């Protein structure tokens, strides 16, 4: 099986304190530690486990620049057989749709049986997988929590839905799946592993090799643009609710509703 896993380099939420910068218009980027988006890492592990059982190769790919190579290498240290960096000046400023367009061009050149993405990136919109599938006219499923290979070019997958239930589906190959965290237990990659792949070549593929029309990608083509960052309205320290027990319960219940806690 030829599996392509689309990954992304993001600021790691568990090792960063994401906060606004002093100017209040962007996040403070000075001290950020970046790593591979967590769901993408689960996707790579899943791909590796699939080829371990069914044979094949795993390619990891990302759209970005030089600094994004490190996540490709990390996933290759984990076991991915190939890494590809899609990089070109014209790609800069692409929105999710632009990224999907770029990936689509690559997939059409190479051909893959299965394409995986992580369900969402911390600063993303959970969209690239679904868009890529629609562009390629491949079937799609999101929030995948298990994959089983069936005979005849099909997969049985489960999707995570409300309340912890699982939706079982059958899907034809080739397809695109967006992978949810917890699907497996990714193997550990240490410094040593990364050092061992430090000199493996990672091809850089640009717009010309992909036959991409520049009008479809990049900032100019983006339909969705982030304008700024600002602080969400928040209170500092707990606001102690006052009143009788019933009154407090009532007030709390309204808050729970407003905060989206109710099902």
């Amino acid at each position, binding site marked *: 099986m030829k599996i392509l896993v689309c990954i992304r380099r993001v600021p790691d939420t568990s*090792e960063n304190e994401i906060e606004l910068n002093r100017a209040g218009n962007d996040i403070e980027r000075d*001290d950020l*530690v970046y790593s591979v988006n967590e769901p993408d890492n689960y996707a790579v592990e899943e791909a590796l486990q699939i080829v371990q059982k069914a044979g094949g190769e795993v390619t990891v790919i990302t759209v970005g620049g030089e600094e994004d190579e490190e996540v490709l290498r990390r996933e290759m240290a984990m076991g991915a057989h190939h890494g590809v960096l899609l990089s070109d000046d014209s790609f800069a400023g692409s929105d999710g749709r632009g990224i999907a367009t770029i990936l689509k061009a690559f997939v059409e050149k190479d051909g893959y049986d299965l394409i995986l993405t992580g369900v969402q990136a911390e600063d993303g919109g959970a969209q690239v997988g679904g868009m890529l599938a629609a562009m390629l006219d491949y079937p799609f499923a999101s929030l995948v929590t298990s994959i089983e290979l069936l005979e005849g070019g099909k997969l049985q997958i489960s999707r995570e839905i409300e309340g912890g239930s699982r939706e079982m589906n059958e899907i034809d190959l080739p397809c695109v799946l967006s992978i949810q965290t917890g699907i497996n237990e990714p193997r*550990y990659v*240490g*410094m040593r592993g990364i050092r061992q792949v430090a000199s493996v070549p990672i091809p850089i593929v640009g717009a010309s090799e992909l036959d991409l029309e520049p009008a479809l990608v990049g900032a100019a083509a983006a339909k969705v643009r982030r304008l700024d960052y600002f602080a969400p309205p928040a209170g500092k320290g707990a606001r102690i609710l006052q009143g009788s027990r019933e009154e407090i319960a009532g007030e709390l219940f309204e808050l729970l509703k407003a905060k989206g806690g109710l099902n």
Partner: protein
Amino acid sequence: MDFDSPARATYWLIQGRILFIALYVLGTACFAWIVAKRLTPLRRARKDFRLDRPWMRIERILQYWLGQWRHPRYWGAGIIHVLIFAGFLILAMRAFALLIFGVSNNLVMPGGRAYGIVRDYAATVVFALMIVAAIRRTIFKPQRYRVPARFGKDRTAGAVFLLALIAVLMAADGLFDAARAAAHAESLPHGSLSWAFQKGLFFASLQTLWALYLGAYLLHGLTFFFLLCYRPFGVQFHVETSLFSIYFAKLERGTLKPVRWDVSEADLDQVKSLGVKTFEDFTWKHILDFYSCADCGRCSDQCPSNTAGRALSPRFFTLKARDYCYQHYPVLGRSGNGTRLVGSLYSEDEIWSCTTCGSCEAECPLLIEYIDKIVDLRRGLIDEGKVPQSLQKPLKALESRGNPYGKLEKKRADWAACGIRILNGNGNRADTLYFVDSITSYDERMQAIGRATARILGHAGLDFGILGACERDSGHDVRRFGEEMLFLSLREHNAEAIRASGVRRIVTADPHAFNALQHDYRDLPPVEHISQVIAREVEAGAVRFEPVANPDDVYTYHDPCYLGRHNQVFDEPRKVLDAIPGLKRVEMRRCRDRSFCCGGGGLALFYEPKEEERIGVKRVRMAAEAGASVIVTACPFCLTNIEDAIKVAGMEGTIAAIDLAELVEKQLEPRLHESVLISRGGRQI
């Protein structure tokens, strides 16, 4: 009937001498063959350099082998073994002399009559002890000999069989002597085994005596060689291997073996596979350890993981490996190799469950090493990426942020608020470095220890500073969890920062950091623990304490593993506590080098093994048993585990925990400390 020479006698038409030469040659050849086969895996194993410092090693032979130093720690079995061992030494000469009688015509006993008396009583004592030991095993059944179902069948039968064989050996010798003495009407030492036999043979005819004489001698020879060849198949092999396991035992405290003795750190990248994955990845000394285990169960008895019901039992860790070795390197047949150990012989949980407290190593009479083996297995798991998710998060955070919590480096010194000098190369210099390490820097509760330590250092007039944001985790537990590369990187960074700071001394309040800086790091200025600093101040009369606020409290000191057992710092914290007026102190039953681990520090706080009861809870109960209402400890990890355990055990209000530095600082000045109040559910000490 020449009662002086079995050599000349006739055994079923064969002359004694011929028979015994044949027996000795066969027996010795058999033994040599077996030993050669047992040496095979050692030849295939990894290198281990153990030939250095021969005088120190000989000293240890004298202390631990000859002196049986570790044995009396369990006084019952200990005394029995010391006596048996002494008996064996005394009888060694006799045994060989006796064998020679079978082939030579001269019956000359070396050592004369004096030796003869001594050895007669020695044999009697050994014989009696065999019976005592057998009774102990079969009737009293000490807990530590029990074999949990998952580890196989009970071994009492095998133990009793061996005891019986030795008893037979003594009896055969005694009977041989008695028969001869009876025939020659000689007198034997009163009350000895042979004397008793002689009494029993009073009415025996010369014919009978002759038959017994020859029979006993043959029995002795057969038993001797049977035992010789049987020992390498079980725990009795320690009779031969103990000398070597003790001679080659590890001399360094507190540190780990390198990943590969024959590969330098710089070249580790070239090595294809790190750590122990198959049996042959162990070093020859490790395999020798597997042979040397006497199945005494003391290691597992002391092991906190085992006591808490975790998957790990050091005793069976060794015995399983030994059985694997016997199975794959049989005396007869082809030797196999190469199966993965973790997943078949050991479970992953077993390997990650170890807190590296070292009580197994402190207890083992044969100086068998455990920590290095567990760490080597962990290195193998890390190399294969088989790390539990709960450990991957802190490891990743350690790599990116230099601490297991993922907190920002630049916030590492935030606990210090103001007033503590930061030695980050901006011209600030100091004589002493206070190495804080990660938990004290970032954990809100443990930051209190940092502040208390800083105040104490200031009070003692020390010119000190901290590395602040330049400091990274000491890497102590990163290394012990098998991530050697990450450890090397952290060490390099810290060593650089320490050197750049120009300090001449290092002080820390974290025993893990203390151990790392002393043993895992090299070429650093001398390192001390805060308790040693305070103790010195106390001795010099440079510090005075206020009396304890509540004179009814009973304090007990819990020895942290990496301060006490691994580094032998037992007295200083006690001296400090005893210098506080009005402080009533008791000792727990398990204290000093028998201190019971709190549950483990560093990365152990993140791993969740399957266990029946938390290790910390057991420790808290021990404190309560000793009558304590306050547990004092000198380690932030111990404090974390013990405070947690107090809550789990539902003993808040009955017992409280405090760090030594916190307590000292409090007694330097009578002031309420909020952090202490929170930890004790509001009750003021």
